[in-house]
């Protein structure tokens, strides 16, 4: 009984941290979808690039770890901005399918780029002070300090996001554009700028998630963004694509689902990813708009 309680507590905190990471990435997906109705398939790879930027900032440019992380987050934001400007903006008035296909192409491009430039060999991300790898020991319960750091950082970033969206003019414009682009631009908002800011914020969040992820699973390789990206996307859909609360709730939900199920049924470890997809399918069948409905389905 004691062992079970210990495992449960460990798994609980583990779920919070994994869920936080999914939520951070999911928010980026949902913000872009809210504004452009585009599923930015490249988002998972932006997460990957952020991690590599941090890695090289510290190992190649020899910046102290906190500065390296900061620089990486900024550069990733810039990357998101560039991708929007170069690949998505020219297609803004084209059929939606074209942007979707282009996003797939960008994702593919980023992965290949990482293989060629960074090398296909996985690198170890041991670029931060040992403190982060320490464990908090409370009797028989051992929880990595990183878990708490992840939870705190995630909470802080979501607070920041809330302030941005509800207490600033830019945030107001972002929410308005999510409803109707032409009207908002008539109202005087610079649509292109707001869209760029959305991408910058989403990509920066993804970079933070990437750094935290690499601290937890210290192996960095070009395809590392694929599965977390897909799962975060599923989280966003489950929560209701277009809704930021939805992305956050969806992220934590998915994190819990994944860890708890494998915790209670270790034999199902191989099927770990399936639960995300199955949940997705169920949601799509019965409530496609997700938990926090934003868009109604087109009915005639």
């Amino acid at each position, binding site marked *: 009984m004691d062992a079970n309680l210990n495992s449960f507590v460990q798994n609980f905190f583990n779920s919070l941290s994994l869920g936080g990471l999914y939520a951070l990435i999911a928010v980026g997906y949902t913000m872009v979808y809210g504004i452009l109705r585009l599923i930015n398939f490249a988002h998972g790879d932006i997460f990957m690039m952020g991690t590599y930027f941090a890695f090289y900032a510290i190992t190649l440019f020899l910046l102290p770890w906190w500065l390296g992380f900061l620089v990486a987050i900024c550069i990733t934001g810039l990357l998101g901005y560039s991708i929007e400007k170069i690949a998505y903006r020219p*297609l803004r008035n084209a059929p939606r399918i074209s942007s979707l*296909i282009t996003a797939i*192409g*960008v994702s593919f491009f980023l992965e290949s780029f990482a293989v060629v430039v960074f090398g296909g060999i996985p690198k170890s991300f041991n670029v931060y002070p040992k403190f982060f790898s320490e464990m908090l020991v409370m009797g028989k319960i051992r929880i990595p300090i990183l878990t708490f750091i992840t939870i705190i950082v995630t909470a802080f970033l979501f607070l920041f996001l809330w302030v941005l969206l509800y207490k600033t003019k830019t945030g107001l414009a972002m929410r308005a554009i999510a409803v109707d682009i032409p009207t908002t631009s008539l109202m005087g908002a610079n649509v292109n700028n707001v869209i760029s800011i959305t991408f910058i914020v989403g990509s920066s969040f993804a970079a933070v998630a990437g750094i935290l992820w690499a601290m937890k699973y210290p192996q960095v390789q070009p395809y590392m963004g694929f599965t977390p990206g897909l799962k975060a996307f599923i989280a966003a859909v489950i929560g209701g694509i277009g809704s930021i609360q939805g992305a956050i709730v969806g992220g934590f939900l998915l994190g819990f689902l994944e860890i708890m199920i494998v915790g209670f049924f270790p034999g199902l470890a*191989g099927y770990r990813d399936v639960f995300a997809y199955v949940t997705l399918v169920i949601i799509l069948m019965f409530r496609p708009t997700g938990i926090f409905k934003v868009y109604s389905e087109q009915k005639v």
Partner: protein
Amino acid sequence: MKKLSFKVNLILTIVFLIGVYFFLANANIFGDYWSRIITLIAIYGIMAISYTLVNGITGIFSLGQAGFIAIGAYTSALLTLSIQQKEMSFFIQPLIWPLNSIQIGFFPATIIGGLVAAFFAFLIGYPSLRLTGDYFAIATLAFAEIIRILIQNSYGLTNGTLGLKGISSYTTVWWAWGWLLVTVIVIGSLKFSSYGRALRAISEDPVAAKVMGIDVFRHQMMAFVISGFFAGVSGSLYAHWITTLDPRPASLGVMLTFYVLIMIVIGGLGSISGAIIGAIFFAFVSQWLRMFESNVNFFGFTIPGVPGMSMLMLSAIFILVMIFWRRGVMGKSELSWQSMYNFFKKRVGDENG
């Protein structure tokens, strides 16, 4: 401009087919490697045509093609593998009955592979086609991944992550191109029939089509299932070309769907000849670009190879096509004698002033 008569069209087509026949019969001249590539082109062609039927002609954006290809590949491979090979490969969990004691020929195995894939297309289409646009894409993606993960974990059925190897390489130039011909005829007839016109109407505007009395759901379902069948067939051909199957994401996952997507986008969404052109382009370019991955000797200098370069260039080309040339080579229309005649007549006409 003169319109070519039916007779001229027929003669040109027959001459063309005879030309293709001779080309294929002598494919070995180019060496074993190139005849392998020529076979691969036909396999890619079938994948592309089946995919363009759904994404292009019917206008519903599916991301699940890899799932059906995988089903076709595994089903047919499990049926054609010899019994000793199965015993040797399945050493975590023995293969279930009756698969562990039957072995059938290539042709029936391919047909069954296609049928099983079509069956799954039916199962998946039924709930998914209720969804629109992006949601449909997400749903098909999810189903394809579920299929792949199930294959990856069912050691008793598919040998799980160990995969299948030692599959006999039955796919020759003839089998591949033969099936390609069948695919072109079937889906071509579909496209130019009343069903095809209905599909195009649905792809333009589903609401208007419904108002006109077209049963949108039934038509989309039919296209989806037929596409599933041919995807399964292509999977079987592919399995017997590459001789090993690995259910991990890199080979039978979403990446495969993306590759086929690249083919049909470059060739032109909705065009059958475009799909074949896209397949040819993809096969050649991805093999040719591999050249940059190993050291190249140029007049005594060795230029070091960069692994992964081929994929980088391919994705860059893809993005450029999407931004600057979205309609692809053929757009929605088909390559026909009439269009080529018009094309050449126009150029000659221009030059003569």
